[in-house]
């Protein structure tokens, strides 16, 4: 274990520098740099195949970088043990069904695994953490229901609860709003905003620029040539840049929300 690099209090939770990664002979991404600090929400946008998932795999340690560095809490990713990393970085996959009908409570409890010994099983203290996170996301009443029987939105909330049960500092969310209806999208996005306000660093992949406008402090737009534009959503997600990235002209419309804040939405021009 590498303990020589201390984690300065104000350092970013995730620091990616000049990252290059890919599969086989192909470099999918090259020269990527960005940071995410506590309470920040980075929203990654880009067309299909631009490398959003590849970027996630690199940050989660599934795909070793070919060049550049990925630092988590100031320490090189390769210097982290798997369990130790899972206590700092939690992954929220797209809502999916498990092959076996675990209860929602059991699924959320699996988030305690990195806190257990290799041969350990969760105990009452672990159930308490899992229960608190289910209550926080408003799914406490589903604890004894089968994970395969609840709705897609509830499944997504359960997977977020599982990630929170890892008690991480960084949340990596892969399209948390995909396949959800409008109400559930809003529910998930409000959780994202509240969790960041509570001090979590969050990286989320999205296909909807509207969601970046709604909750992101930083937007990262992957364009097909494998480069990344990073900045505030208003600066990065312009009609010109989005049109170029997705290969279709778009319009950005603005409205006023309940508290007088500006709401932005992106519409494709057909």
């Amino acid at each position, binding site marked *: 274990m590498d303990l020589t690099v201390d984690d300065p209090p104000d350092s970013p939770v995730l620091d990616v520098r000049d990252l290059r990664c890919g599969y086989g002979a192909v470099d999918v991404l090259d020269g990527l740099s960005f940071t995410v600090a506590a309470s920040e929400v980075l929203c990654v946008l880009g067309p299909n195949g631009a490398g959003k998932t590849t970027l996630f795999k690199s940050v*989660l340690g599934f795909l070793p970088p070919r060049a550049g560095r990925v630092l988590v809490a100031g320490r090189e990713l390769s210097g982290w043990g798997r369990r130790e990393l899972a*206590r700092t970085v939690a*992954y929220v996959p797209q809502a999916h069904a498990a092959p076996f009908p675990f209860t929602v409570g059991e699924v959320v409890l699996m988030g305690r695994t990195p806190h257990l010994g290799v041969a350990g*099983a969760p105990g009452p203290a672990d*159930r308490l*953490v899992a229960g608190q996170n289910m209550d926080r996301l408003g799914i406490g009443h589903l604890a004894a229901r089968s994970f395969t029987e609840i709705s897609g939105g509830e499944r997504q909330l359960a997977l977020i609860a599982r990630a929170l049960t890892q*008690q991480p500092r960084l949340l990596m969310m892969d399209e948390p709003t995909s396949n959800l209806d409008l109400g559930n999208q809003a529910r998930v996005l409000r959780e994202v905003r509240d969790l960041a306000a509570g001090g979590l660093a969050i990286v989320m992949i999205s296909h909807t620029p509207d969601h970046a406008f709604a909750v992101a402090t930083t937007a990262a737009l992957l364009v097909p040539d494998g480069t990344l534009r990073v900045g505030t959503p208003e600066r990065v997600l312009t009609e010109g840049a989005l049109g170029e990235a997705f290969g279709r002209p778009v319009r950005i419309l603005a409205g006023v929300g309940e508290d007088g804040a500006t709401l932005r939405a992106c519409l494709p021009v057909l």
Partner: protein
Amino acid sequence: MSAEAERDAPAGVDGAAPADPWRRGRWPVVTILSVLLVATVAVSFAVGVTAYPPGTIVEVLLAHLTGRPSTVARVDDVTIWLVRMPRIVAAVLVGGALAAAGAAYQALFRNPMVSPDLLGASGGAGVGAALGILLSWGSAGVQLSAFALGLAAVLVTYTVGTLVGRGTESTLTLVLTGIVVSSLCSALISLTKYVADPDDKLPQITFWLLGGLETVTVRGLLPLLVPVLVGLVPLMVLRWRLNVLAFGDEEAASLGVNPRVVKAFVIVGATLMTAASVSAAGMVGWVGLVVPHAARMLVGPDARRAVPVSALLGAIFLLVVDDLVRTVLTTEVPLGILTALVGAPFFLFLLARGRRAWT
């Protein structure tokens, strides 16, 4: 680490927390099945061609286990200690081992249609036994060569599967390689049958392949007991991590589980148990496939309960079936045929009742 401190912090409310509020089913299934298993074992000693009162059975067992002198007639002593005891213990071990291994494999491969001989353990053991019978190696030699070739077949499957999959350890490649190795083994079994003496060796090989516990001796119990217990250890120890693996390798890794290590240990454990069972009792089919389904219907898929409940149910199931073989039927029908006759319809019943359990 601050996370560890937080983990210990809420320990004060432990007493108020119910045992396991989110599990499926309220019944203390493990306790009930344990009692049922003990009762089935007791009944199994008593029933048979000759029925014995409990006093005689206890006296014989105590005499052999503690060396106390016994007044039981020699013929009854032989029947209870040398005939019934090994058969009952073997039924418990083989049934429990096959069912636990099946439950572990089904969780590991994320597929409820998987049985413990998926990677070629039964096929390899069959070749070993057929070869041992053909070359007249005696019953201990047959058991040993069945065990060795059962392990070898799984090793071949794993190595070839990893090579073919170019180190990715893809589950599909592993399963397909297992099918190839199994059918190669059945070709080799056919070859030994083809060259075997049709009056003497051929019927022996055929009967062994049909499966049965009547050939298990007191001395044959140890080579069964040790691998079954050793193989059970990783299954019991890693069963929480087995749950996490149900969500796929990458999600498991993101939860701090090393999928390769867990898979390797569970495959080694389940293979040990399967190979030992097959080498002692021949091809006893259906137990490893059907019993884990019944277990999951009772307690849900959480391997913390599903693995021990599968083991207990498997032990009871095989013991009851073998008791039927010994008592109800006038001629001894091979055990493997009876488990198939009971298992196949029971599987269809489970399929009809609880499709939701694995969709």
